[in-house]
C-alpha cells in the first residue's frame, strides 16, 4: 500500500521541470526528498497532492488513480503541510487546528473529535496556546499549529486500517532546535503507527537520521534512490551540490 508517482513529466512553458520521475511512499515508511533549489521538489510534491496535473504519467493513491478520487476523498488519504499563507481573520489556535477536519459527517469520527483535537494539541505542546489568537503567535508556533492540523486530518481510531499519508514540505523551517527534533520524533512515531511520510528536507543530516529512504533529485530527475547509507555518498553529493562534502561513519554530513 503506497502513494505512487509513475513516470511523471511536467513542463512549465518551455522549461522541463520534471522528467520521467517515479517515486513511491509506502505505509509506515519515511521517504525524504532532497536536492538543490530549483530541482523540482515542490513541483513534485504538488503533483503528488493533486494540486497540479502532470503532462504525462500517473499518480496513484493505493489502488486508485488520483483522477478517480474526488477532492474530498483525496483528503481522507493524505494531509499536507507546506508554506502557509497569511490568515486575514482572527481565528483562535484551536479553530485553526480544528480545520483539519472539514466535516466528514462520519458519526464514528465526530464523537471522538474533541478528544482528538486535545490529543494532537498535546503532542505538539500547544495545550496552553489553544485559546490564543493564531495571528499573535510567533512564526515557529504557527508552524506547529499547522502541523497539529495535519495530524488531526489524519486522525483515525486506533484500530483503523484506513490509509494515512503525510506530505510535508520543509516542516522544520522556522522552528527552534528543540522543536525541530521534537517534530521529527513525532513523525517517526507516526511512521511506527503505519502512517506513510513524504518529506522535503534541506537538512541532509535530518534526512540521514530520520528517513527510511532518501530520493535525491537534480534538474528534474531522480538521480539516486535508496537507504541513507546508499544515497549519501560524498562524490554523488559533491556533484549535485557543488560543494566539498564529507560523510562519516555515523552518516553525519558536513560541508564546511
Amino acid at each position, binding site marked *: 500500500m503506497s502513494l505512487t508517482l509513475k513516470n511523471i513529466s511536467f513542463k512549465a512553458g518551455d522549461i522541463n521541470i520534471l522528467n520521467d520521475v517515479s517515486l513511491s511512499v509506502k505505509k509506515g515508511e519515511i521517504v525524504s526528498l532532497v536536492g538543490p533549489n530549483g530541482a523540482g521538489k515542490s513541483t513534485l510534491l504538488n503533483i503528488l*497532492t*493533486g*494540486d497540479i496535473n502532470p503532462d504525462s504519467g500517473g499518480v496513484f493513491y493505493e489502488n486508485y488513480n488520483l483522477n478517480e478520487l474526488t*477532492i*474530498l476523498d*483525496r*483528503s*481522507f488519504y*493524505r*494531509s*499536507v503541510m*507546506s508554506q*502557509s*499563507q497569511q*490568515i*486575514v*481573520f*482572527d*481565528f483562535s489556535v484551536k*479553530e*485553526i487546528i*480544528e*480545520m*483539519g477536519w*472539514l*466535516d466528514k*459527517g462520519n458519526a464514528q469520527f*465526530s464523537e471522538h*473529535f474533541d478528544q482528538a483535537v486535545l490529543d494532537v494539541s498535546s503532542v505538539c505542546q500547544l495545550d496552553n496556546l489553544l485559546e490564543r489568537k493564531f495571528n499573535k503567535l510567533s512564526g515557529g508556533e504557527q508552524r506547529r499549529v499547522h502541523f497539529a492540523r495535519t495530524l488531526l*486530518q489524519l486522525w483515525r481510531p486506533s484500530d483503523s486500517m484506513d490509509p494515512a499519508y503525510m506530505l510535508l514540505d520543509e516542516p522544520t523551517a522556522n522552528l527552534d532546535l528543540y522543536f525541530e527534533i521534537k517534530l521529527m520524533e513525532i513523525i517517526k512515531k507516526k511512521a511506527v503507527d503505519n502512517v506513510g511520510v513524504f518529506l522535503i528536507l534541506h537538512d541532509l543530516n535530518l534526512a540521514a537520521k530520520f528517513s527510511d529512504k532518501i530520493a535525491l533529485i537534480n534538474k528534474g530527475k531522480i538521480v539516486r534512490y535508496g537507504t541513507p547509507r546508499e544515497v549519501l555518498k560524498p562524490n554523488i553529493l559533491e556533484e549535485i551540490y557543488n560543494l566539498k562534502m564529507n560523510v562519516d561513519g555515523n552518516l553525519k554530513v558536513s560541508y564546511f
Partner: protein
Amino acid sequence: MINSSFLKFVTSTQINLLIVFVLLLFLSFLLASSTGSYSINLIEYFSGNSSELQNKVFEQIRSPRVLLAGLVGASLGISGASLQGLFRNPLADPGLIGVSAGAALGASIIIVLGSSIIPDYIFGPLILPLAAVTGAASVIYLLYLFTKGFGYQGVTYMLLVGIAVNALASVGIGILTFISSDSELRGLTFWTMGSFGAANWTLVFPALLIILVTIFFLIPFSRQLDLLQLGEPEAYRLGVDVKKLKFRVIISSAIVVGVSVSLSGMIGFVGLVVPHLMRLIGGVNHNYLLPASAFFGASIMITADLLARILISPAELPVGLLTSAIGAPFFLWLIFRIRKT
C-alpha cells in the same frame, strides 16, 4: 450537512448571541410595523379594532415595505460576509465585484431612456427591477468569461475585473446623466441613493427568492469558507472543491446583490460593515458569521427604513443616505481600531 457542521463549530456564546440578534430583529420588526405616517399599530390591527382602510394600509403598504427592507438587509449582510470570506479581505463589499454597478446601469437606462426603447409598457413597473437584474447578470457573465469560469488566476483577477466593470458602468451612468432631462435626473439621483418606497407584495417575492438563495447556496458552505482562509491550496488539500466554492459564492452573491439593487437601488455599507461588527462581537467562523450578519443586517435595514420614513415626514430620506451616514464614520472607527493593533 447543516446540522453536523453548524452545531460542531459554533460556540455556546455564539448561539446565545444569535438568539439575541433574532430577538433584536423581532423587536425592530415590531417597531417598524407599528410606526409610520399613517396611524395604525399592531395592537389595533390584531385585535380587530381597526377600520378597513387601516387594515389595507397595514397589509398593502406597510408590511410589504418592512418585510422587503428586512429581506434585503439580511441578503446584503450574508453576501457581504461571504464575499469577505471568499476574497479573504475584510474590505470586500458586494459592490466590489461590479455587480451592483451593472444593476444600476440597467436601471438607469430605463429611467432615462425607458420611454424611447421599451414600447407599450410591457412589464409595467416591473421593468425597472428586470432591467437591473439584466444588468447584474451581464456583469456576472462578463466575470465568468474573463476569469474562465472563475478559476483563472484566482480572486485577485476577479477584483480587477470588478474594478473595470465599475468604471465602465460609471461611464454609462454618466452619459445617461448627461443626456437626461431634469425630472429624469431627479428620478435617477434618488434611485441611486436607495429607497424601499416602491415596495409592494409583487416585489417581495424576488426578495424571498434571494434569501432562499443565501440559505441554500451560501450558509451550508460556511465551514468551507472557514477552510478557505488558510489559502486556496490548503483548502483544496483539506477536501474543499475550491473552484466550485468560488463559483457558488460569486454567483449567489451576484444574484443577491443584483436583485437587491433592482428592488431598492444602491444601499451601501450594510454588506461591508455588518460582518465586521459581527466578527468583533462574536468571532470569525462563518457558521456564526453568516446567520449573524443576516439577522443584524435585517434589523439595521428595517430600522434605517423606519427612520427614512419618519425623520422628515411627509418627505422621505433616501435609505442609502442613512446607511452611509451611519456606516461611513463607523467604518473609519473600525479602521482606526485595526491600525492600533
